[in-house]
């Protein structure tokens, strides 16, 4: 039962994030929403992979039944990539704010079009 509750919660987290990207006007909120959906997928992957064992995948003496290390290693990569994308997106947002004076995506679009 808890399995389904966890999955359902992650599903909702993903939907909330997607809704933020889709409907929020503020670009900072959009970037955060992007992080939300990435986290939802990352946590889902690691959580599901951890159900097969009890211990962290560090094979010291006497450790058996470790969790699946593959999702953890892969998601490590995905997390770093997502951090990098976020950093650059925030820099872009800062740049947009400095050039157009707004965080609202519609305002920014309008002003960028006026300028060019």
């Amino acid at each position: 039962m808890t399995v389904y509750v966890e999955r359902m919660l992650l599903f909702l987290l993903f939907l909330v994030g997607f809704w933020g990207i889709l409907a929020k006007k503020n670009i900072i909120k959009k970037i955060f929403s992007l992080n939300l959906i990435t986290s939802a997928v990352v946590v889902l992957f690691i959580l599901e992979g951890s159900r097969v064992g009890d211990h962290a995948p560090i094979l010291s003496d006497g450790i058996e039944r470790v969790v699946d290390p593959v999702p953890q290693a892969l998601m490590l990569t995905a997390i770093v990539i997502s951090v990098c994308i976020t950093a650059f997106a925030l820099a872009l947002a800062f740049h947009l704010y400095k050039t157009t004076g707004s965080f609202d995506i519609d305002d920014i679009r309008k002003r960028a079009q006026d300028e060019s």
Partner: protein
Amino acid sequence: MNPDDIVFAPVILPLFGAALALFSKAFLKGRPAVFLEYAGVLLGLGLPWLAFLQTAPMAFAGNTFQGIIGGWHPAIGISYSYDGLTWLVNILIFSIGIAAWLYSVGAGPKGPVFSTVFLIQIATLAMTITTTDLFNLFVCLEVMGITSYVLIAFSGKPGASLASFSYLMVSATAMVFFLLGFYGLYRLTGAISYLGIVQGLQGLADFGGITANISLVMIVAAILVRVAIMPLHNWLPDAHALAPHAVSAMLSGVLIKVPLFALLRILITIPQGMRIGEVLGYTGALTALFGVVLALSQRDAKRLLAYSSISQIGYVVSAWGMALQVGMETNLGIILMASAFLHAFYHALFKALLFLSIGTTIDRTGVRDVLVRRGSIAILRLQGERIPVTFLCFLCGALAIAAIPPFNGFASKTLLAHALKGNLHYLLLGVASAGTVASYIKLSRIYWPRAKDAEAIDAMVASEPFHRIHWTIHASQSFLAIVCLIGGMAITTIFPLVVRAVGAPGEGLEPSVSLYSVDNLIQTLVITLGGGLLYLLASSKPGCRILYLLRRQRHTFQGLFVSFAVVCAVLSVLI
């Protein structure tokens, strides 16, 4: 040294070059720094050609280098495969890469940081087409993405950072869907490599059922965002129009095609691939048609080129999808795929050429609007261009994309038409070709002479200081123009080679090319005349009105995600 290691030359050498360029920025100053940077670029863009030369016999013989990076266990390690198609796409990447970098030396953005990012992009493109590991593909696509966001933002034009931001948001979101799709497939099959996934799916009832289908659709849709097929194209016009010209050439020429051929590697073996290919084939043909209508409606020169790229990628995708549909083991499939690749390659050449020559022109004349600017040749002459090289190069590119013999566009479009004859695609692409002719007549207005303005132009140019056009700009443009011409003339030798590299030809497949038959010439004549007529229609009053309405249809940021969701939903219903 193992002989197999040579396949990593196009990946590791540009990376090494990038590291050298970055090193030169951090440690050296003045001449030595520039020297080391150029050495890095030469190493990264030049040396891989030796590897291509070395691997050419094997590529045409239909052999494949396969293996796991570092020789690890196949269940976890990263598998790669280097075959004829990889070889061909590598040639595409590196020829456009050289021209674009050379142009950037003269026209900017230059400097070690640009070279570093550019070389990293080249390396990632080469890896994208070499890898057969789904998660590695994910990482490659992310690197490819972030290099292009950074390169677009480098231009510093107003709006460029917005274009970069829109592209970033939509493609990063799409990549999260890719990751989710990867999760779905991993969960079903426990494999990361394409081969393992396919074997896993074949062992399941109904090939994994709805979960497998949906996971696959997410991966396909995420890659299609990069390919910019309609309706996922809305990020492209801004990004390609506002990037620096050299980067635009790279984006339009290479970046939208490499993911498509990487996708081919997944779909070619997977059971659901055939159906996806069929759907995408029709989408591609429609993209070609609508893209060209939008191109015709644009006034900004570079936006017109960007929309035209969407239309041309539609040509490629329609033949590509058809090839998947009929199956790559059949002769027709091989011919279709070879034509699709050839058009992708030739489009990369002439579109890069067009972007570069138009870029030079609008930089020098200061106006991007095709309806306002006239007499660019005169202006360029005043700026020290005695022979109108830029105009001639533009002419080469425009004639090539309008499929006028003997340029390469004529060859690849005729081959496509041959392969697609008898399908709905053929008709749609024919109409699109007429539209292409019309839109390039419109674009060429920028060079039309206008006698009465001559004095005003003289005065304007004389009042502004200018720099001479750097020789590298001319060199890069002329290089592309000559390759376009050769590609058209030597098609009878090139096409059979491409066919052999794409797939082992079965019995009775003799790729005979009779380009200059009466039929083809008549067809070209009809399309060209149709294009001229269309241009006249478009410049008439009602035509202008319709195009104005089309042009005013502004896409919204939200629309990018709406169309992505719609594509996912529709694809999953159709498969």
